[in-house]
């Protein structure tokens, strides 16, 4: 009999999701508050079960489907934590915009369970099932503003792009299975290292790698596979946008490490170059496209495309140092992006627009919200004393020490480009007159979420030491 202790958090999430579905049809169970509380408690329980699950074993468990290691535990904590904050901060938005709350949270919990399996996958099968669980739930979530054209468009675009991405990924994985004869990621790495089908020098492994990277590139919204991201991020309900940019992207980045850097590890000369080019392209396209945006959600969408580019640089390096930088950057990105979307949620939660015009004069209307958004923008830019700065510093260190100085130069130049639009946000809030004097209010949960995000940004920026040790531990995993 299998020991299921290792996946207790995910079992809790699935159970919570089913409970919410029953709650949805129970008499009087359709109140948004009750559903939000159930979802938040489920996520908190999953987080509480995580230490027990992490200590349930080391290495492959459950027939090799799941790998328990520091890397997986780190990502599960990040993914579940991010989802918890999204649920708490988005509760007012969901209630105010009249979304079908129980179904919304049921899909969200299911998506987190899928994301977790991507982060701990030890097998192509568990990785793919996790990916589809996450994706199918996300398609639904993107279209949750029923009757709103942009939301419908977002769901449809996301679904069509996602389906194509899945097809590409599956085709690549089928080639990998064909040449390795196993679906276990460790087994694939061993077969490739043993020279199956020409090993690292073979044509078929290279073709498979291209398809797998294209499929996963869609999921992290890496250029040139990012075209769906701005439309989906703009049209989706704001809590879902935050969720997609954190959980969906984080899980896909973890999966790139699991499937490409470990499973296809012996091909590292190929994927290193491919990921480096993808990374340079992604950060440049993301930052340059963000310059023209008028909608804040769209601007943040392009900004998150660019940030995925930075993270890919760390994966491309392929060393323990690079992986450590990746983990630190994802943690930093979690706090600053959560914060930035939180402020947008405060605006759109009370029915205001989401364009740069609507931000004008926010400093006079709500000085606290404006100060927080300024802090998050500066961190996204990567100014010293913020989390973003430490993250970029580590990426620099990793790329330069692996003689990929050109990639470090790309990061530096792109930081310069991004300064324009991050300062544009700040200029709108502080130097433009407000159209109305009415203050923008954040409810208690949203305020708490923003406080946590701000504390995270400052802590990671000013006292990075303890977090560095944590990400160092998590990076300890078999890299080629």
């Amino acid at each position, binding site marked *: *009999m299998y020991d299921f202790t290792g996946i207790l958090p995910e079992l809790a999430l699935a159970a919570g999701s089913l409970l919410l*579905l*029953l709650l949805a*049809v129970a008499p009087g169970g359709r109140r948004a508050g009750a559903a939000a509380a159930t979802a938040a408690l489920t996520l908190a329980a999953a987080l509480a079960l995580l230490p027990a699950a992490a200590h349930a074993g080391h290495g492959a468990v459950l027939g090799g489907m799941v790998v328990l290691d520091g890397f997986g535990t780190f990502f599960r904590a990040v993914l579940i934590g991010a989802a918890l904050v999204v649920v708490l901060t988005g509760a007012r938005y969901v209630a105010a915009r009249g979304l079908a709350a129980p179904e919304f949270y049921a899909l969200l919990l299911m998506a987190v369970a899928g994301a977790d399996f991507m982060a701990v996958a030890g097998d192509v099968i568990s990785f793919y099932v996790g990916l589809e669980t996450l994706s199918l739930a996300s398609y639904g979530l993107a279209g949750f503003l029923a009757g709103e054209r942009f939301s419908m468009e977002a769901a449809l675009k996301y679904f069509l792009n996602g389906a194509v991405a899945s097809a590409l990924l599956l085709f690549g994985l089928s080639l990998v299975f064909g040449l390795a004869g196993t679906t276990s990621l460790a087994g694939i790495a061993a077969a490739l290292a043993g020279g199956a089908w020409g090993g690292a020098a073979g044509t078929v492994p*290279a073709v498979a790698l291209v398809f797998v990277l294209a499929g996963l590139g869609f999921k992290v919204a890496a250029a040139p596979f990012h075209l769906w991201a701005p439309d989906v991020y703009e049209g989706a309900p704001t809590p879902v946008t935050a969720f997609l940019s954190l959980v969906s992207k984080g899980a896909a980045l973890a999966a790139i490490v699991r499937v490409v850097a470990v499973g296809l590890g012996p091909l590292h000369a190929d994927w290193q170059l491919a990921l480096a080019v993808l990374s340079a392209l992604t950060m440049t396209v993301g930052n340059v496209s963000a310059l023209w945006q008028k909608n804040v959600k769209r601007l943040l969408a392009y900004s998150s495309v660019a940030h995925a580019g930075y993270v890919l640089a760390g994966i491309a390096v392929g060393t323990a140092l690079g992986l450590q930088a990746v983990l630190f950057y994802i943690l930093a990105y979690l706090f600053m992006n959560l914060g930035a979307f939180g402020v947008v949620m405060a605006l759109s939660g009370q029915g205001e627009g989401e364009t740069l015009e609507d931000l004008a004069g926010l400093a006079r209307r709500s000085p606290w919200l404006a100060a927080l958004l300024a802090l998050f923008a500066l961190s996204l830019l990567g100014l010293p004393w913020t989390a973003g700065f430490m993250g970029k510093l580590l990426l620099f260190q990793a790329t330069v020490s692996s003689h990929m100085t050109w990639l470090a130069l790309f990061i530096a130049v792109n930081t310069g480009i991004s300064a324009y639009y991050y300062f544009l946000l700040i200029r709108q809030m502080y130097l433009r007159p407000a159209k109305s004097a009415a203050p923008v209010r954040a409810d208690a949960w949203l305020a708490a979420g923003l406080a946590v995000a701000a504390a995270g940004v400052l802590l990671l920026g000013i006292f990075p030491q303890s977090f560095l040790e944590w990400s160092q531990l998590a990076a300890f995993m078999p890299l080629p």
Partner: protein
Amino acid sequence: MPLYVDLVVFLLAGFTFPLVNVLLSKLVRRDYPDPLKEVSYESGIVPIGDARVRYHIHYYIFALVFLVFDVEGLFLFPWAVVFKQLNPAVAFGEAVVFIAMLVVGLVYAWKKKVLTWI
């Protein structure tokens, strides 16, 4: 770089193969157009009306629920085949969990009046 040359050859071959086949058959074959050949079922029922009619959205959800239970039945077959080789109590428990999850879906659909045909 020979690796990437292979890749280009692979791509070119992939595009050329269908194109050449279609064009070649176009050149070689004889052409006797006949309205009867354009019909959906050449030797079947004569079609009535347009295929592009609007289905009731209800039909879609109904079919979806059917599909879920169809696939459930499919998954229970391999389970039943190896049942005797497994620990019966555990195997039974696992199947019950699996079916219970689908039952939650059925209850949800039922209460949402998916099963009532309007």
